């Protein structure tokens, strides 16, 4: 075929952006207020009883956690519920594929858009959490942003894979119950993994979220990264993008074109 053109994926991104701009208030309400509500709840509520995690002040622990959580939630919501609506209800994908845009470009555009929205939410958490005093290293936080973006591409791809198999909107409840929720509650977002029995903690490392936190948290706290371990976590996150993206593309191709 003809390779993947970023300009074509960019045209898909732009379409999402224009729609988003029309519906900006409801988008902002969910994607900005939602993570901030969680942040306040954890920081005030849990912060009072959980003084330190892994030797880090609780606020400095939970702010990067919420940045990672919101990246995951926003990106995967966008490529599940929202993308499925575009695919099956609005038939936007059909319309797009009747042009010069290929399926890979369409799905890449979807993932890039989902990751962009995720970044917006993560930035809001960073800003509010940082002003509150939860970001000891601003330089580290800036360095963490591209990592969050890359991980969000992965979360988007995982959502696309679910969409590729979904028959209806209720199917996504499995995805949120058995994929995103464990990454919220069992992956070190708002308390440390070492509170779990060893086997559960080990199982959590099969998910992408602990790897993302292992990169982001040392950066925002200023502890710094150990290169070899960081490369390992980065590789896991990369595979969590490449594999689901390829699988989703193959499955959607069969579903739409056969």
């Amino acid at each position, binding site marked *: 075929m003809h390779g993947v*053109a970023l300009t074509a994926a960019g045209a898909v991104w732009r379409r999402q952006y224009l729609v988003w701009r029309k519906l900006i208030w409801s988008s902002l309400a969910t994607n900005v207020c939602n993570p901030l509500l969680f942040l306040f709840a954890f920081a005030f509520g849990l912060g009072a009883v959980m003084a330190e995690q892994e030797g880090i002040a609780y606020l400095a622990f939970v702010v990067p956690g919420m940045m990672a959580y919101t990246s995951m939630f926003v990106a995967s919501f966008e490529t599940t519920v929202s993308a499925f609506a575009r695919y099956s209800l609005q038939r936007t994908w059909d319309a797009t594929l009747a042009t*010069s845009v290929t399926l890979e470009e369409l799905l890449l555009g979807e993932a890039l858009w989902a990751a962009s929205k995720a970044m917006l939410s993560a930035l809001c958490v960073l800003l509010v959490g940082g002003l509150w005093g939860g970001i000891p290293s601003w330089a580290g936080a800036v360095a963490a942003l591209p990592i969050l973006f890359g991980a969000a591409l992965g979360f988007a791809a995982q959502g696309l894979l679910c969409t590729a198999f979904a028959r209806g909107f209720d199917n996504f409840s499995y995805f949120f119950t058995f994929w995103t929720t464990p990454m919220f509650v069992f992956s070190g977002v708002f308390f440390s993994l070492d509170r779990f029995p060893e086997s559960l903690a080990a199982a959590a490392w099969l998910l992408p979220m602990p790897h993302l936190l292992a990169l982001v948290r040392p950066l925002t706290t200023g502890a710094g990264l150990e290169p070899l371990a960081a490369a390992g976590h980065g590789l896991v996150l990369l595979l969590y993008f490449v594999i689901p993206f390829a699988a989703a593309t193959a499955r959607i191709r069969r579903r*739409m074109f056969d």
Partner: protein
Amino acid sequence: MAAPVILARALEKRFGEVRAVAGLDLTVPAGICLGLLGPNGAGKTTTLRMIMGLTLPSGGRLEVLGRPPTALSRTERRRIGLVPQDSNLDPDLSVVQNLLVYGGYFGLPAAALRRRVPELLAFMQLTEKAGARVSQLSGGMKRRLVIARALIAEPELVILDEPTTGLDPQARLLIWRQLLQLRAQGKTLLLTTHYMDEAQRLCDRIVLIDGGRILAQGSPAELIARHVHGHVVEVTKPVPPALTGNGLAHEDVGDAMLFYVAAPGAVIDRLPPEAVYLHRPANLEDVFLRLTGRKLREG
């Protein structure tokens, strides 16, 4: 002769057990308007989707602009525009934004779009609605916008799947006029429709399909002459047995009998004075009904 714009040989599409297209041979030369007609479920949309590369054939050969549709390059895809059966516009975006976004999908530069969009709005009489949201448009306006959208990259082949279904006579008339203008500009049109008057008026050639196969093809006039002989005489029963026994083409439609004849006298002159009958020139609808039967297609 120049290479055909679309060439299909023994084209086939199966959906599980269903053979939606069952060995179709189709040649669409450049510059004509070809009408693909057939009852519900005949395989029209499936054929058009295969031509667009939106559905992969299960068998046979298909070439569009000289290549299999999936092998067309990014720029070659600009030469084909599609008006799908279901208008899949972006409901949240405005009329202009729909066109801009679509132009972006074809990789058209912003300067070209700035020139092209107002032209298209004028062509489809949507200029006043430029800023309106698509969800606020009437059905006819949406349809016109889908046609404008298909034309954004100035394609030489325009594929229209039931472009006027559900529209009022004024809207259909406007669309017909603009489609004829496109044909006059030398574009190739491939369209499906359930309106036989539309097919008769717009199409140089008709391909009538059913069950995924071709039943008949030719110009509207040829089809009428060949299959319904030019005139229809509808005789209310009882019909004199002499008429049905003498080899005239006829069809029993319940309480009447239809005779297809080259000269109406062949029937009328043989009717008793008290007979009730109706005579009219035959049209494409007669061909359609005669060849595809009068039974309703179940979905």
